[in-house]
């Protein structure tokens, strides 16, 4: 009978399952805070759902009348599987943010129900051998000790040394081992039918989770690659944005906050179209300003003119500009633009920088991210463009990247109309960039200009996309890119952000 096995071993079971249960709860709370932010809310929701699910489990336990030990082991196995894979699965679910919440709370609920079933079952198994007072006091003591262990070890040991994914898998393995071991411990209470199968299943679950444990690194990378669609070769978190570089067979890609900035395969089309119209239209430019474009690719195009004496690059994020200099594939791609002595890097919010007094430029290239947030939207306002005018020589040309006129026509024409409202003469143009689709730009100047005189002989080095004829063609707007009216984007309405939001959401 069971009393041949020391009762203390059963208490060890209680300790182990209590620790596992609390670890799963902490994992879910932490993950939710990572992904959704606002840790207070996430933790209280997770704890609330978990505790109430435990109540559900305890209530359900009354319906289990026979085969208590068998059910107990099955529940342990289920818990091992769901709890063990909870963190990796939630990480993988990260890109599908709409599904993240139902998935998270579904998991927390199932784990809670199973944990809620465990203790009542175990207590009923033990009640044959102890009086009620002893039983409750001892089981609960070990339960609480387990909880204490979990809550101390989780932040001190497991999160820093193992990480969330491995911690989750490790405790899943522990749960599975408890199940396997219980087949021996509770042997007298188990019928021998299917016992071997049960043992093998416990071993299989342990093994699978163990494989996950050792492959956890690949798993984490896989999670982000799922979102970005390529193998991640570099990633960092700056105070301003998440920077990631992915690699595909033919080239590499830069993502800021999950948005593609360029693909090395066809970025030359984008950057040639962005830069050269502003550089070719006037006398040879000597002083040039590039705003945004911390990847240095627009700078590379600018430096193809020997007339340049100085080039200022204003980009918010030092992590980005340093990456462009120090990350070798990118440094190669921008032809070491940041090592050129004429190039000066200014890491500042362009809106704040443009408001300060400073020199005037012959040409300005504006390569800000798309206006998906208010903090970027302000860089496309009449206020910003008027401040820019103070930094322009009379005939200076300005080129602006303006998102896709095909996907987001309202946004595109909003930028063009805003430039006009600020007093610019504007010529809209576009270029096909396979990675982006049809892309829109605007060429603007405070002086009137009609056609772009082309002096390609000024360009040192090769152009792979632009020729004289191609350049003229970019200014011809096809029937599906025709002008439309739009609100003017101002600081006090941020109309562009609203257009952009609705147009790109619709297209997703």
């Amino acid at each position, binding site marked *: 009978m069971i009393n041949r096995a020391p009762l203390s071993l059963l208490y060890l079971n209680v300790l182990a399952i209590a620790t596992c249960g609390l670890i799963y709860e902490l994992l879910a709370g932490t993950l939710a805070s990572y992904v959704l932010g*606002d840790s207070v*809310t996430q933790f209280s929701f997770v704890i609330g759902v978990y505790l109430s699910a435990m109540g559900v489990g305890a209530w359900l336990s009354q319906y289990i009348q026979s085969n208590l030990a068998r059910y107990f082991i099955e529940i342990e196995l289920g818990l091992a599987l769901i709890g063990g894979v909870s963190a990796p699965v939630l990480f993988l679910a990260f890109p599908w943010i709409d599904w993240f919440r139902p998935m998270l709370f579904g998991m927390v609920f199932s784990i809670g129900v199973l944990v809620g079933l465990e203790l009542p079952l175990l207590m009923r198994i033990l009640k044959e051998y102890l009086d009620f007072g002893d039983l409750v006091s001892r089981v609960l003591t070990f339960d609480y000790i387990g909880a204490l262990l979990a809550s101390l070890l989780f932040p001190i040991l497991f999160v820093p040394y193992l990480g969330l994914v491995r911690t989750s898998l490790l405790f899943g393995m522990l749960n599975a081992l408890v199940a396997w071991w219980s087949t021996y411990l509770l042997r007298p209470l188990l019928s021998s039918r299917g016992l071997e199968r049960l043992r093998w299943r416990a071993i299989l679950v342990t093994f699978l989770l163990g494989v996950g444990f050792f492959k956890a690194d690949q798993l984490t990378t896989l999670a982000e690659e799922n979102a970005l669609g390529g193998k991640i070769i570099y990633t960092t978190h700056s105070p301003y944005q998440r920077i990631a570089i992915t690699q595909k067979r033919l080239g590499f890609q830069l993502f800021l906050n999950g948005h593609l900035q360029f693909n090395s395969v066809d970025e030359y089309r984008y950057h040639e179209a962005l830069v050269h119209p502003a550089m070719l239209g006037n006398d040879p430019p000597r002083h040039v300003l590039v705003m945004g474009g911390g990847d240095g690719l627009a700078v590379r195009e600018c430096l193809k003119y020997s007339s340049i004496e100085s080039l200022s690059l204003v980009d918010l994020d030092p992590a980005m500009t340093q990456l462009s200099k120090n990350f070798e594939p990118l440094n190669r791609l921008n032809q070491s633009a940041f090592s050129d002595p004429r190039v000066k890097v200014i890491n500042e919010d362009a809106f704040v920088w443009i*408001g300060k007094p400073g020199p005037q430029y012959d040409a300005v290239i504006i390569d800000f991210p798309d206006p998906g947030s*208010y*903090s970027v*939207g302000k860089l496309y306002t009449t206020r910003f463009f008027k401040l820019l005018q103070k930094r322009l020589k009379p005939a200076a040309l300005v080129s602006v990247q303006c998102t896709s006129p095909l996907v987001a026509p309202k946004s595109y024409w909003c930028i063009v109309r805003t430039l006009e409202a600020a007093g610019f003469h504007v010529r809209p143009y576009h270029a096909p960039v396979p990675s982006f689709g049809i892309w829109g730009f605007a060429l603007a100047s405070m002086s009137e200009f009609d056609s772009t005189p082309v002096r390609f002989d000024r360009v040192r080095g090769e152009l792979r996309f632009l020729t004289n004829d191609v350049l003229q063609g970019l200014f011809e707007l096809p029937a599906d890119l025709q002008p439309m009216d739009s609100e003017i984007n101002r600081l*006090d309405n*941020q109309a562009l952000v609203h257009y952009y939001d609705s147009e790109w959401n619709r297209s997703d």
Partner: protein
Amino acid sequence: MIGCGPRVIPLQGELLGPDIGLGHRLRDSHSLVPSHTDWQEIPVVIVGGGIAGLSAGWRLQQAGFHDFVLLELEDQFGGTSRSGITGSFQYPWAAHYITTPMPENLPLIQLLQEMGVVEEVSADGVPVVAEHFLCREPEERIFCDGVWSEGLYPGAGASRDDLQQKSEFDASMSTWAQKRDAQGRRFFSLPIATGSDDSEVIALDNESMLSWMNRQGWTSPRLYWYVEYGCRDDYGLPLDRTSAWAGILYFAARMRTASKDSQDVITWPSGNGHIVQHLTSRLSDQLRSGQLVCQIVPPQNQDELFGTTVVAYDKQRQQPIGFRTDRVIFALPQFLAPHVIQDFKVRTGRSTADFQYSSWLVANVHLRGRPQENGFPLCWDNILYGSQSLGYVVSTHQSGNDYGPSVFTWYYPFTDISPMQSREKLLQLGWADWADLVLADLSLAHPDIRSLVTRVDIMRWGHAMIQPYPGFVWGPTRKAAAISDGTIHFANTDLSGIALLEEAFYHGVRAADEVLLARAS
């Protein structure tokens, strides 16, 4: 309330307040007599360097009259519109915005034009405000159920009935905003002197906003909260102690057309301190700070040249000085009149007991970085649903600075206890108690805020705002108080029964016009 949560108080901070020590000296300073060399003759003396006093000076100077001095108790001008500066950060210490004036408010439009804030005035008199002085989008958000959402109304989780009542309320306010009296005046307008005194409007002053709302059948807790937020924000009063007239004014006076929500907000990183900076730079020759005005004595004979005397205590020289003058503009809070003007009660028969004031606490919280966010991004105005505070205003918002260090200006009106009790509490509690309250409140929405705070400075305002409680604004006391006492003219926002820059400015200009008129005759 105070002291809950971990007590991780930042290292630095200061507890500030109007010069209480010097102010209380007023009580025993009537015997001060300047030596005969410390007297000077000057045609006009303005007493008080808040918006009302500065506006009076501005108006005099505009009329080509420069022969006056302006005496201010504090070292800093501006009263409750003052601002602070630390390094490159400017931040308000109290009042922090105005709404674009209606075409009727010509003097204010003129001032804003002079400041370059109004760029032009259209043919129908509508001022066009320069883009960068209008509050930048996103303007306001509310923290409710763990998430920030856009706007001031806690719409997330509202029931159909809540929303129905909200839209009824909005429609009602829009109707009030459209109403004109027989003389063509708007029912509700700023300054209130340009609005109507029609009996239908005045009748609203006889009951509280709460009882008026209940009579309309509006009992939604969310609507209560939304409207009360406005009352606490502009008057420092809860719903049941705000006059319904004032409660409606908050919404209706700022709507020009039915199609538009509200007049656009004009603001600066330093709040209304920006207007103070402009006015003080215009008036620098006439301004004298650190002057405690102890006594104003009206002339024996009205026609006597330089017959009115003003005695002040010069903080720096630690000596009394005296002015013989023709006209005084009294631009201090009205409750000080009996303390400063000789025989005020006996001669005028007026009491100032009806002038009741709300107390406020304002904290400037200096941060090394921005806190974590959940939901709608950081706005200019950030409100916590259910909190007793009014939330915070981000001083760097208007400068377009979206990253890194910032200063949050946090507001807390004492609405739950009487004015006397709140002033006692203001004096009793220390910096650490207040800082703890500020951070506990901010932690509700930003659990990580304590790790980002570098400094918390706290300002105690004992008499921050005149209270438009039921019956006060359209009662007899307020009206009588604005009438000049012989050579002494009154100018302060109290005379409107509500504390707004627009009102202080109006009374300053009005008092200056009275003085100019008296001098011309």
